[in-house]
């Protein structure tokens, strides 16, 4: 699929912003939502060190232009519900999990949900995403993966020497 978005330009902007960190800090991780509690317990039971879990999210309108979401949604042929850019810094990970969304019940009412991930940074050795029994690494910028199910189990880790950026879209 042709790359219609200037991802380099987008990253130039978001890389200078603090974004919104997601960590295993119970104050940060909303364990009152059932899905969050399940994932949190899974990680705690597995002995995951909270100091290694962190990713940083950037959102349209707040951190990057809303038109990025619109363009991408048009490209993949869906109506967008939400999008974000995630950043994992060197030495951090998002261990095995599925995404939990406070608005999920609202979203499923509007139609069949579709989820996409786009690789938006030049590939760096040691940056890997796992999704539905497949591993994605060395992906050219602009590579888009459509998920089989919006709530599939996945994970990602950055053992590389640069920050690892992905763009995500949920739509219908």
């Amino acid at each position, binding site marked *: 699929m042709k790359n219609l978005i200037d991802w380099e330009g987008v990253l130039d902007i978001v890389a200078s912003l603090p974004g919104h960190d997601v960590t295993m800090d119970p104050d940060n991780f909303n364990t009152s939502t059932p899905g969050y509690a399940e994932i949190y317990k899974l990680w705690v039971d597995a002995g995951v060190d909270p100091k290694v879990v962190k990713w940083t999210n950037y959102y349209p309108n707040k951190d990057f232009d809303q038109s990025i979401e619109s363009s991408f949604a048009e490209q993949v042929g869906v109506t967008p519900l939400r999008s974000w850019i995630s950043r994992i*810094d060197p030495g951090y990970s998002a261990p095995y999990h599925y995404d939990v969304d406070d608005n999920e019940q609202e979203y499923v009412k509007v139609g069949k949900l579709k989820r996409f991930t786009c690789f938006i940074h030049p590939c760096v050795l040691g940056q890997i995403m796992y999704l539905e029994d497949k591993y994605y690494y060395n992906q050219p910028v602009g590579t888009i993966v459509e998920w089989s199910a919006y709530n599939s189990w996945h994970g990602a880790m950055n053992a590389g020497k640069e920050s690892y950026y992905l763009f995500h879209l949920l739509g219908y």
Partner: protein
Amino acid sequence: MKNSTYITNCAELVDLDSIIDSIPESKGLLTPKSYDLWMERFDKDILSIEKCNGAECHKSVKGWQASNMNIDAISVRCIDARDMVKDTFSEILNIKEVLWAEFSQSEPGKMLPHHCDAIMDDWIEAGAKKYSIFASKAEPGHVFILGEDHYCQPTQGDIIEWHDMCEWHTGMNFGIKSKWLLNVVVTTN
């Protein structure tokens, strides 16, 4: 694969789960918990060894530090396995002498970023071979990168031979089970 060759699967011949279960939790050496301690260990244990690629290994840690790699994630437990390898793998790998053998255990969320191992000049001169044996069951998030070869969720018991013992490599575990890898350097008959 570009930097390694698949040799065989030993799972039917070797009960790797039992071997792993028999290793006491207190056994082995954990990697240092700070960059200062890494450097200290290099000065003491690696750089002082003659006829070794210690200086190259040293670049590994310098590289991690330079990229501000989260030190809390860099953690592996290394357990000497020379006797076990001699007893268990001599026939499978046609071993003449075990020069070095180590289990490495990586807990969920932990990694050993891009690095090279300490390799003695003597081993190269002796024509030694280096193998990796994927010891734990295939689990999501278990990854081993050797040069450009990516082994993702490898099958338990698979044995690969390194094309170059000094090849740079990376271990990663973003799953929810411990990852066990057995690395050996041997001469063969």
